């Protein structure tokens, strides 16, 4: 879900930077209140752990594929929303700088799509209400705690990933990057991330359950001191969890497939409008009524290498293309020249060093 710089227009990127910046400022302010510097190393180590943990492949039973950890929910459960959010920012910044995963300009958007939803929405809408609620109270303190963690992790990962995927689509569409219609793009992104969210939710639940079994005091909002009763093995829990996930996933996919598929719909829609007949580049009819062609024609007037060549009978248009191509070739030549000069100076430098 990491967005690259090229997928965002500067205005959208700046807006997302501002939004994430406000959230980060509020988090820093909140964390400074308790003046406890002890949290800092815990945050750093946990962030590093999540970073490394996301690289572990978890085999999904019955399939050849593997899943990964959902960082936002895990950090929220362990550190709380503010500290989790800042840790996620740091993880995303390092991923962007060192592994080219997401861009420098897109960092604001990535922080919003992954860290904000994962930490703030995940905590205030899901983790805290579920942990403090009286859900599963018939299962005994321990069982209820376990069930709550599973529910919160699953719901949290699915919801926050859906929100994130929606934001990716919205930001890309607002930036005018893709010609893919908004609905179609959304129709592709959401189901994919539903599946990813379910798997990430199960893995996150497994890790949080382990922490709950061994050191419950590390988790947020969980009443510690519950006696050990009705111990079910972790394996059973995970299997039950996977079953629930499969049922939920199946239900969702049935719902999704009863609607017409977005891509199919848009292609059919275009075919009915006579779009497919125009594939043979019938210029007399094509482009006169199409809005895409109108837009393209407007752009052609402004840009150089894409002149009004095909539609106009003026000679100057041909000249424009040629000069654009010649200019580009010259730029390439300059680039090669720079390389040669650089190589020359480095050789000289090496020779001098010897």
């Amino acid at each position, binding site marked *: 879900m990491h967005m*690259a*710089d*090229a*997928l965002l227009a500067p205005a959208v*990127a700046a807006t997302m930077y501002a939004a994430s910046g406000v959230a*980060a400022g509020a988090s*820093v302010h909140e*964390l400074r209140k308790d003046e406890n*510097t*002890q949290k*800092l190393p*815990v945050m*750093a*180590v*946990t962030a590093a*752990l999540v*970073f490394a943990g996301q*690289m572990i*492949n*978890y*085999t999904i039973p019955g399939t*050849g594929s*593997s899943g990964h*950890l959902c960082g936002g929910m895990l950090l929220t459960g362990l550190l709380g929303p503010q500290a989790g959010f800042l840790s996620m*920012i*740091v993880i995303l910044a390092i991923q962007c*700088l*060192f*592994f*080219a995963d997401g*861009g*420098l300009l897109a960092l604001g958007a990535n922080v919003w799509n992954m860290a904000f939803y994962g930490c703030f929405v995940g905590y205030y809408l899901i983790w805290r209400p579920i942990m403090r609620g009286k859900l599963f109270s018939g299962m005994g303190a321990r069982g209820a705690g376990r069930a709550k963690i599973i529910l919160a992790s699953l719901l949290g990962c699915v919801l926050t990933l859906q929100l994130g995927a929606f934001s990716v689509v919205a930001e890309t569409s607002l930036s005018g*990057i*893709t*010609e*893919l219609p908004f609905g179609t793009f959304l129709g592709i992104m959401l189901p994919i991330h539903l599946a990813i969210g379910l798997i990430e939710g199960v893995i996150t639940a497994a890790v949080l359950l*382990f922490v709950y079994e061994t*050191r419950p005091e590390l988790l947020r909002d969980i009443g510690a001191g519950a006696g050990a009763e009705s111990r079910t093995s972790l394996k059973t829990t*995970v299997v039950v969890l996977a079953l629930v996930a499969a049922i939920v996933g199946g239900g969702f996919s049935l719902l999704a497939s009863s609607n017409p598929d977005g891509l199919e719909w848009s292609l059919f829609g275009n075919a009915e409008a006579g*779009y497919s007949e125009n*594939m043979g580049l019938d210029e007399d009819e094509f482009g006169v009524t199409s809005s895409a062609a109108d837009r*393209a*024609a407007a*752009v052609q007037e402004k840009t*150089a*290498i*894409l002149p009004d*060549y*095909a539609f106009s009978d003026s000679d100057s248009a041909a000249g*424009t293309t*040629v*000069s*654009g191509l*010649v*200019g*580009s070739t010259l*730029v390439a030549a300059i*680039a090669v020249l720079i390389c040669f*000069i650089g*190589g020359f100076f480095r050789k000289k430098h090496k020779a001098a060093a010897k």
Partner: protein
Amino acid sequence: MDKVSHALVEFREMDALAAQESPLHRMHPLIKLLVTLAYIVFVVSFDKYALSALIVMVLYPILLFQISGIPVRTCFYKLRVVLPLVCAVGLFNPFFDRAPLLFVGSVAVSGGVISMLTLMLKGIFALMASFLLIATTPMDQICAALRILRVPSLLVTLLLLTYRYISVMLREVSVMSEAYHLRAPKQRGIHVSAWGSFLGQLLLRSMDRADALYQSMQLRGFHGEFYYAESPRCTPGAVGYGVGCVAFFALARYVDLPQALGNLFVR
């Protein structure tokens, strides 16, 4: 080699590049950071059909690769992460935007193809710029630059600490997964029965490590702020470099330079 050890190698490689010596390495980190950001902003702000105008922007990374002596190969290796996503989004353009924009001989090139190529170039250029920044600037210098920009010290310290700990964690995870795979041959990932305990064990150990880390930091007099290693001086030449770069980006953005250059020869 598995993914974790790969990441570890990549991490060390970047550190080694940043520790090299060149005029670019010696430049003030804040100027490098701002110029990089300006470059990316200008690159992505090009019109989606402005393929020819965008091409000029290749000169900046090429010049920097030459000045710094950083191998281009390392950078292109990183493209494997960025390009698939950009391509996945861009690949739909030729299907939806079929209006022919340009003819090469008798072959029509549609707007979608041009916008797809522009998008890919933008992706590659933006990546090269941020790669050059991180390959010529050590992390503590970047953190110092962020402090000059008034980014809260809590966040900057967290960034630096996490950065230090990532290599420790990666090594730990690498050792653990190697041990796991030696005991469970022919298994590609972590089995369901160990989903929770594998990372959970490491998490518990890490919490103890964080405690020890905090104690050692306190014994050394930590009170919430690091003192960063001395950054290179901000010389007038560096400021001139920054202003010159941004002026060139703006010129390239608003004047179609290849077009103008071509006109000199064609007409």
